[in-house]
């Protein structure tokens, strides 16, 4: 087990290395001068030659590509991701702060998604191919098909502007969490509902469930005690994956709701050619995502002892 974990962590290193070269390389080879962007944005007009030179110096853009990569990668290993082109502050604290804000949405959204998905999925499985199942399936597919930015706009106009029930945007007070979380939760809720349905369906046909039924256990007992419990195993994986994707999908939702999270940071960084931030986000999100999937795998092993045997395969 320990060796398995160790190997998984070691494998992360070449992955991150490859990614760092990719992000750094691509971002430095694209046309456009970040120093000019920075200085022009500051001046709100095309920058003067002096201002561009000043910005180049301030942003550490002097020197060749290789020199800069070595400097950047060397620092990145020590946890220093360089200095943001837009704020000139160290990237890492900014990134950690933004990640905190994103998680404040993503975690409740994942929980909300589960709260919607599990009952829906179980009902769907038990009432398989009956009208209730079909309606729920179409509904959950509809949820997965909804463009989140569209939904977000409609919700804002309806609830925030027309009825003034909730703030339209920004991070201020508890109410401001409601709309972003609901918007963000919809797609994973739909996906997890479908997932729960198929996981429960699978266990419903297994021998011990059939046996439990034969022993005369009530349908509710069978579903909750046996089917759902066994369906938990794959569900944990799915939730882990959803979390990673909630973070990714947050870009759009954060833009609509002006939430200072990772997604918005990324979009802004792209529009400002702030490549230390772009590279930092890609690298760190990769690392975090890898850790999440590792944890999920370990949880998997804890819930289902059978996995442990097969883990070295």
């Amino acid at each position: 087990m320990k060796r398995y974990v160790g190997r998984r962590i070691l494998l992360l290193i070449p992955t991150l290395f490859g990614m760092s070269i990719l992000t750094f390389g691509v971002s430095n080879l694209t046309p456009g001068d970040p120093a000019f962007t920075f200085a022009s944005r500051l001046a709100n007009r095309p920058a003067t030659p002096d201002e561009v030179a000043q910005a180049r110096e301030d942003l550490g853009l002097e020197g060749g590509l290789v020199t800069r990569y070595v400097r950047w990668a060397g620092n990145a290993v020590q946890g220093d991701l360089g200095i943001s082109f837009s704020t000139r502050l160290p990237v890492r604290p900014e990134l950690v702060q933004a990640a905190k804000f994103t998680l404040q949405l993503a975690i409740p959204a994942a929980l909300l998604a589960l709260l919607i998905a599990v009952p829906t999925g179980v009902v769907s499985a038990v009432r398989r191919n009956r009208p209730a199942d079909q309606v729920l399936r179409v509904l959950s597919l509809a949820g997965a098909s909804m463009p989140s930015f569209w939904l977000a706009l409609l919700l804002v106009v309806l609830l925030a502007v027309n009825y003034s029930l909730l703030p339209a945007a920004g991070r201020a007070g508890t109410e401001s969490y409601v709309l972003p979380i609901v918007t963000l939760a919809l797609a994973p809720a739909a996906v997890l509902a479908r997932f729960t349905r198929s996981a429960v369906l699978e266990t419903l046909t297994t021998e011990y469930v059939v046996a439990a039924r034969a022993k005369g256990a009530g349908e509710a007992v069978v579903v909750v005690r046996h089917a759902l419990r066994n369906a938990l195993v794959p569900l944990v994986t799915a939730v882990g994956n959803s979390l990673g994707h909630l973070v990714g999908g947050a870009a759009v939702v954060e833009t609509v709701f002006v939430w200072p999270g990772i997604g918005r940071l990324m979009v802004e960084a792209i529009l400002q050619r702030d490549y230390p931030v772009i590279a930092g986000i890609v690298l760190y999100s990769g690392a975090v995502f890898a850790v999440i999937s590792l944890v999920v795998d370990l949880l998997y092993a804890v819930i289902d002892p059978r996995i442990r045997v097969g883990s070295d395969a």
Partner: protein
Amino acid sequence: MTVTMTGTHTAPEGGEHALPPELGRVSLIWRVLRRDRTAMIGVVLVGGLVAAAVLAPVLAPHDPNAVDVVRKYHPPSREFPLGTDNLGRDILSRLLVGARLSIGTAVVAGLSIGLIGLVMGMIAGWFGGVADTVIGRVVDILLAFPLFLLALGMTGLIGPGLRNMTIALVGVAWAGYARIVRSAVLAERGKPYVEAARAAGATELRILRKHVLPNVVPPVIVLTTIDMGVVLLAISGLSFLGLGVKPPTAEWGSMLAEGRNYLDQGPQMTIFPGAAIFLMVLGFNLLGDGLRDALDPRASRALTHG
């Protein structure tokens, strides 16, 4: 992008249990599909919207790019069934013509993802060795990141635009397929009938084509169908973030992104493109879901008996 990954995990059910190839398989699938009411909604949606896209030049009541600012923000009427936008262009015509680009991109991207994933997965699974290691490493790297975030980053780095967005998406999304196909191929490779075929003197290519391919293609088809919807969502999302299509080209995502600046005066500019995206993605999803059931023998059996 959530759908892809979850699809990734559910798909092998279909693959592992698929029957060996047989004649009339398509008609069998169609028979199963036709009894699935939700799948039929998907067929109607996808078929209808694709037909609308193909027939756009005939169906469009107006020139989609004809600017006439005097008639801007026209609410839906007989002349302009879905109203006009901020420059007086007919929204219905723009949606119809935009459908070609939006659906076309989704289909092309979906097929590319499926095809690249299929080929890579088969190479890795069947030949093993160095090919497997290299492909496996690349797949690991790509799958180590949240898909949308990575696609977003890549789009930002290689530069915005519909083409670059599509390249970025395809470039990161094929990895999931490759992994599924690889494990499916690995599973098939060890099966007795493959050994038997080999003993009977069949060439590798023939075994691949006759025995392995039919077993890995169905889950890929299901996933590809669903992912066309996912791609459409992702592309409209990127367009919405300002990384998309340049004007005046009509494309659903950029129409929607543009429309939100006119929520007050022309809500139709936001509502209808969003609805079009929603319906198209829903269609892909319903169809994919139905196909999954139809291609999964257990499911179809259950359908027949229950």
